[in-house]
């Protein structure tokens, strides 16, 4: 997302930059205080001041050093920028803008505050604009407008990519040429036959047989060329889409989590499966036919004009008419069928709604109402569908007739010439055959622009991913290092969107082997802290040191191999238990695996399953309970012999027995590595050396259980609240049987 718009000349003059001053951030704003759309309003931040420009005037100017508060507040479908200046007691509205600029200005506000603190760091937005701010074109999830960015277009990259398939392309071109040539020869053969041989007295049986055989051979050749051409196109299309798919998949694995989380998983799946399939479809449907159609049409016109240019002009004159009609017809059809699709979509979602909520519908007894609603939707759909089908049935034959109008004229004028003996019957037949070659593909050709645009959109989306550089990658001087597990946070700030800080100025020093319990209400950033230790994201500000080395200076793969992670929801891949355990350490021996499983209290249940370590788990696989999955995850973590262990709600939502077993397993595991554990059930953290309470983006409290209980702060509150909840639950549990 662009945070530095180009400021127009007049505004630049009004701004009057000082000698050492440059524009750091600049964004337009588009609503004025009366609530009207406005143009030519700009928010500019330089090293020294924050300026609001309206038309060519400065309406507000605040030295950056005097900003005590600056925040973009999102409202309902618009946003405001609120400021407080040193010496002012109250919040003040500075600007108003639509959703187009909300996140942009939020980023800029953060950037301005960083400038005030004297940080040279420039805020960058990872989000994408939905609409190109320059040309107003909708962007299909790409980071830059393909038209305005001036980078080599996706199409050009694709063309050079297609260079890998030179051989196929040459063969296809030859086959296309052959098909067109044969198609063009056939009318000539027919003409000769009609004029020379198909005449009583002159022609012989032998000639008729020769003709029939020649024609048969020609048609077989056409069919052969067609089939091999389509075969080649299909296989090339499949190969291209397979290769792109592989590249995309590889890239997605490489890219940082932030890239993937900024996009919906569905959208990314779509790029791998949908967009590459789109390319294959284009290769099969359009590419195969496109060029040979054009070659045939152009050659037909050339031959026709050499036969009779007057008739040719007559014939060609109708082409624009037919083309225009066909386009208009298609547009109309598209509109109509889009509407039909829209209605069927409504029916589907209505149906899905009711069926998924059937328990609610039944328990509230609203079956009748829902049936009535559905009937309404269904009859609306039926109405549209009927109208469309009738329209199609009525109009299509008429359109085809009109499209061929030119040919009827040719037949008439040609017929007159035949009677006047200035043209032979054979030539007329030949001419009409060429005319059909010209008109035949017209209807099909009108689909081409749409198909080409779809291809381009898909290409843009694919290359948007392929061109993306992973944010987190090994620095050139990264080192491979065996770590001991000392972790230090130095002034760390981070937000998934950099305008919404999740953690601010975190300072924390952890000794090797220490166990840290992370406590706080949900959404306070405990998991985020852990994500940063795992280096799934890069910090916005500050540093994380592992054994005194900046985490960014470590080779990622080596570092990750020394981490162990157990999450609340542990993902098991489709495969055997053995393979799932080996995932952490591909070269682990069977003995190592069994040892790890024993440590995790998992060995016994694994051996009890019918196929032991070879039991298939994952989707459609053997059903493991939550506790069993959890123990597998712990075994997986142990196998790595990690130096830093991360437990994110590893024991929540388990029954008492499995929790006990897991607790025991974890105790063994945490004994000799640095552990960060998050747990809602605070009793789980009783063994922690220190507890860190996170509240309001900061570390609010830190200390041992006893220290924090004495302090009577947030932790104390949480513990007492949980005790009371437990007591209440227990009491309810006891009361029930007494009532019954």
């Amino acid at each position, binding site marked *: 997302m662009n945070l530095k718009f180009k400021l127009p000349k007049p505004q630049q003059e009004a701004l009057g930059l000082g000698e050492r001053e440059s524009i750091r951030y600049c964004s337009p704003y588009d609503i004025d205080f009366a609530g009207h*759309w406005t143009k030519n309003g700009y928010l500019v931040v330089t090293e020294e001041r924050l300026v609001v420009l309206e038309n060519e005037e400065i309406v507000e100017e605040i030295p950056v050093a005097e900003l005590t508060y600056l925040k973009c507040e999102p409202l309902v479908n618009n946003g405001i920028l609120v400021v407080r200046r040193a010496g002012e007691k109250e919040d003040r509205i500075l600007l108003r803008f639509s959703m187009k600029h909300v996140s942009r200005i939020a980023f800029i506000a953060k950037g301005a505050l960083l400038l005030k603190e004297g940080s040279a760091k420039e805020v960058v937005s990872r989000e994408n604009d*939905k609409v190109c701010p320059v040309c107003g074109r909708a962007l299909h999830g790409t980071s830059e407008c393909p038209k305005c960015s001036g980078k080599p277009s996706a199409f050009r990259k694709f063309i050079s990519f297609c260079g890998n398939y030179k051989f196929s392309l040459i063969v296809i071109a030859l086959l296309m040429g052959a098909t067109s040539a044969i198609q063009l020869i056939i009318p000539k053969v027919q003409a000769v036959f009609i004029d020379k041989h198909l005449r009583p007295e002159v022609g012989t049986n032998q000639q008729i047989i020769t003709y029939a055989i020649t024609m048969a051979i020609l048609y077989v050749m056409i069919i052969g060329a067609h089939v091999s051409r389509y075969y080649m196109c299909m296989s090339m299309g499949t190969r291209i889409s397979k290769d792109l798919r592989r590249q995309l998949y590889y890239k997605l694995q490489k890219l940082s989590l932030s890239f993937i989380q900024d996009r919906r998983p569905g959208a990314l799946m779509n790029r791998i499966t949908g967009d590459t399939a789109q390319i294959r479809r284009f290769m099969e449907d359009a590419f195969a036919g496109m060029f040979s159609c054009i070659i045939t049409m152009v050659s037909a016109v050339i031959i026709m004009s050499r036969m009779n240019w007057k008739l040719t002009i007559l014939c060609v004159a109708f082409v624009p008419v037919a083309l225009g009609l066909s386009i208009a017809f298609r547009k109309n059809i598209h509109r109509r069928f889009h509407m039909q699709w829209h209605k069927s979509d409504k029916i589907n979602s209505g149906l899905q709604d009711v069926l998924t909520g059937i328990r609610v519908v039944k328990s509230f007894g609203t079956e009748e109402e829902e049936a009535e609603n559905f009937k309404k939707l269904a009859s609306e759909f039926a109405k549209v569908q009927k109208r469309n089908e009738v329209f199609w049935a009525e109009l299509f034959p008429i359109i085809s007739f009109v499209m061929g109008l030119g040919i009827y004229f040719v037949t008439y004028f040609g017929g007159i010439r035949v009677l006047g003996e200035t043209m032979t019957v054979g030539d007329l037949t030949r001419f009409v055959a060429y005319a059909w070659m010209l008109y035949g593909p017209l209807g099909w050709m009108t689909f081409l622009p749409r198909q080409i645009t779809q291809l381009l959109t898909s290409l843009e989306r694919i290359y948007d991913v392929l061109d993306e550089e992973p944010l987190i990658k090994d620095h050139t001087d990264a080192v491979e290092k065996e770590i001991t597990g000392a972790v230090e946070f130095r002034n760390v700030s981070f937000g998934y969107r950099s305008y919404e800080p999740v953690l601010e100025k975190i300072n924390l020093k952890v000794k090797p082997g220490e166990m840290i319990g992370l406590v706080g209400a949900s959404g306070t950033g405990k998991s985020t802290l852990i994500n940063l230790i795992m280096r799934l994201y890069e910090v916005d500000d500050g540093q994380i040191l592992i054994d005194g080395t900046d985490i960014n200076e470590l080779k990622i793969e080596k570092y990750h191999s020394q981490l162990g992670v157990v999450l609340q929801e542990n993902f098991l891949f489709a495969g055997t238990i053995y393979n799932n355990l080996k995932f952490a350490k591909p070269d682990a021996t069977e003995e190592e695996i069994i040892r790890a499983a024993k440590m995790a209290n998992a060995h016994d249940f694994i051996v009890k399953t019918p196929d032991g370590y070879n039991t298939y788990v994952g989707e459609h696989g053997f059903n493991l309970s939550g506790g069993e999955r959890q123990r597998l995850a712990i075994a997986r973590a142990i196998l790595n012999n990690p130096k830093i262990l991360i437990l994110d709600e590893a024991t929540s939502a388990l029954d008492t027995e499995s929790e006990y077993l897991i607790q025991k397993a974890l105790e063994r595991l945490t004994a000799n590595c640095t552990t960060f554990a998050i747990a809602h059930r605070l009793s789980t953290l009783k063994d922690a050396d220190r507890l860190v309470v996170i509240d309001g983006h900061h570390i609010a409290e830190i200390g041992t259980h006893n220290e924090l209980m004495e302090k009577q702060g947030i932790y104390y509150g949480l513990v007492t609240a949980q005790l*009371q909840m437990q007591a209440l639950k227990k009491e309810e549990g006891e009361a029930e049987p007494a009532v019954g």
Partner: protein
Amino acid sequence: MGMKQFEGADEEFNLEQMEAETEQMLRLRYITKANAVFERTKGGFVALDLTDADTKETEHYDRIRVVRSFPFTDRNHYVSIRTIDEKSKEIGMILDMEKDITPETRAMLEEQMDIRYFTPIITKIHSIKDEYGHAYFDVETEQGPCKFVIYMNSSSVVNLSDVRLLITDLDGNRFEIPDFTRLSAKELKMLDLFL
């Protein structure tokens, strides 16, 4: 279920506080001209002094948030006055903007809501161009001329009633057509696809 005696007085006090807070969340407290004084701040917001009916204590808020409970169907009733912090707790509700508060106060609060809610009313449609899954609108709104782009799917254009449409563009801005039957035949034809 009776009250349970906990060991230690501190814990019991805590439970009471929690229950008091829950109780407060359940309470529907109405704000009227009798118990509240609203005042414009220099920064363009509104401050509030509210006297509680039970405790007779006056609460002061430097800046409040004004929120409609029924922004589409009942703009002038049940207007919620909330704190400005992240928790955005409800301070109280104004049942009827016409009767319960003075016209000056009402104007003040309406101003705040005009800033909070931004849904331009479309008065005229110049053109709607549909292109490969997106529709490009060029319209006249009560807030001035405007161009925007929407996705061509069913959630972009929503019927608020039989005649009222709400259109959401790619950026998340919303536009309203209060009564599409009042549009000209030509405009209706362009809009046809979304009805």
